[in-house]
């Protein structure tokens, strides 16, 4: 519960930053998705159960974003599944979980998986949001590979702080 309460404001701030600043800068190729990078990086550092929950919450937040036009629950479905998978990978890579290189590679891969899953599910439910996938995906992945190493120290520190409570699992538990 403590982790959820800690994660939610971080996600809200990341989404506000994405809406207010990132989307107003004209980046080449495509805009980097700070929000997805934060969510996926956080999921990588968490245990699968909580990662699925925070992916679901972050997805709902994205669904309820005023700038979103898709079906509500679509992003929640995608992010719950991808965050769970990312966390499972983090458990497998226990020894190098806090390495920025590992984090960057995993987050970029997870981002690619997110975009693919979103495009596929969009096609299934006849939504049109995933149609620009092939155009935006390379740019998003490029920026993710560039931005994640810069954000990873901050995310790792915040995640560690959130798991500081007794009985917390994830990085703290895994390191302990």
């Amino acid at each position, binding site marked *: 519960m403590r982790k959820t309460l800690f994660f939610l404001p971080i996600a*809200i*701030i990341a*989404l*506000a*930053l994405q*809406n*207010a*600043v990132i989307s*107003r*800068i004209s980046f080449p190729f495509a805009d980097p998705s700070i929000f997805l990078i934060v969510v996926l990086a956080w999921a990588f550092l968490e*245990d*699968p*159960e909580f990662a*699925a*929950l925070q*992916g*679901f919450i972050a*997805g709902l*937040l994205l*669904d*309820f*974003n*005023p700038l*979103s036009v898709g*079906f*509500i*629950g*679509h992003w*929640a*479905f995608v992010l*719950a*599944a991808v965050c*769970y998978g990312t966390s499972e990978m983090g*458990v497998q890579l226990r020894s190098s979980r806090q390495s920025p290189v590992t984090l960057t590679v995993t987050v970029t891969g997870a981002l690619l998986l997110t975009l693919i899953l979103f495009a596929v599910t969009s096609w299934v*439910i006849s939504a049109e949001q995933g149609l620009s996938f092939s155009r935006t995906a390379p740019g998003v992945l490029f920026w993710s590979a560039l931005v994640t190493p810069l954000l990873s120290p901050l995310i790792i520190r915040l995640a560690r702080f959130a798991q500081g409570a007794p*009985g917390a*699992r994830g990085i703290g*538990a*895994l390191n*302990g």
Partner: protein
Amino acid sequence: MAVPDKSRSRFFLIALLVTALIIVTLDLRGSVPGQTFRGVTKSVLAPIQSFFRFFYDPVSNFVSDAANLGRTSQKIEELEAKNAQLEERLSRFNVLSREVKQLKEVLDLAGAGRYKSVPARVISAGSAAGFSRTVELDIGARDGVSTDMTVIAGAGLVGRVISVSADTCIALLLDDETFKAGIRMEGSGILGVVTGTGNDELSLTLFDSASTLKVGDRLVARGSSESRPFVPGVPVGTVVAVDQNSGTLTKTALVKPFVRLNSLEVVAVVTGKVRVNPRDALLPPAPRPTPTPTVTVYITPSPEPSPTKSKKVNQ
């Protein structure tokens, strides 16, 4: 170290995915008030976004200004040039519309008097040497203009042509000191002569000293033989002051011309003979006298004096 229960985690994930699918299905069926939820999120995000914009906007504006510095100054130069061009066009349009108005007035007058005329623009005013009151017009011998022709404007007489070249001509204005023209008083038909004074007003001399002359009387050109130098019936001016000195054989007065000679732009030169004398028909409608209001006061006489007052008088 607590090991996460995998089956529990998977069950939890499936539960979340099923929940998400239910929400999607409900939204597909229109059962989820999406706009309400998005409105709530918007109100939550708005203050945080404003906070970010507070820091981002100045930086963004600075970067944008710095990047567009060269382009902005170039744009300013382009807009200034365009603005100057538009101002010039507007000024030219104003001059043209004023000239069109004056041309219409002078053609109306020429049409009403059945004068055969050629319109002209005033090129310059004043003589090259001396102090004579003249204007140069942009028509000349090629347009059928010759000396001693009448020059008119929309309001009336302007002067007469005194010299002609192939493409231009010079007209002597009626306020020049050497200018003289025969006139006829409106209504009475009394004859006289107006002379330029070099000022805004003309001097009028009537040959009949017994004739009545008052302020407000109007005069038209009498007309010359063969319509040169003056065609008959052209409005000349209005009497503004009368010399009341008696004992002379003539009567004199000051006349204000109908035409404003200092702002001439478009005039016409009457090039043909006039077959019908329009007499007073070309004069503008006479101004109607303003009625003077009269006030009637009724006074009721007071009643007889009171007895008390009478007593006092008696005492």
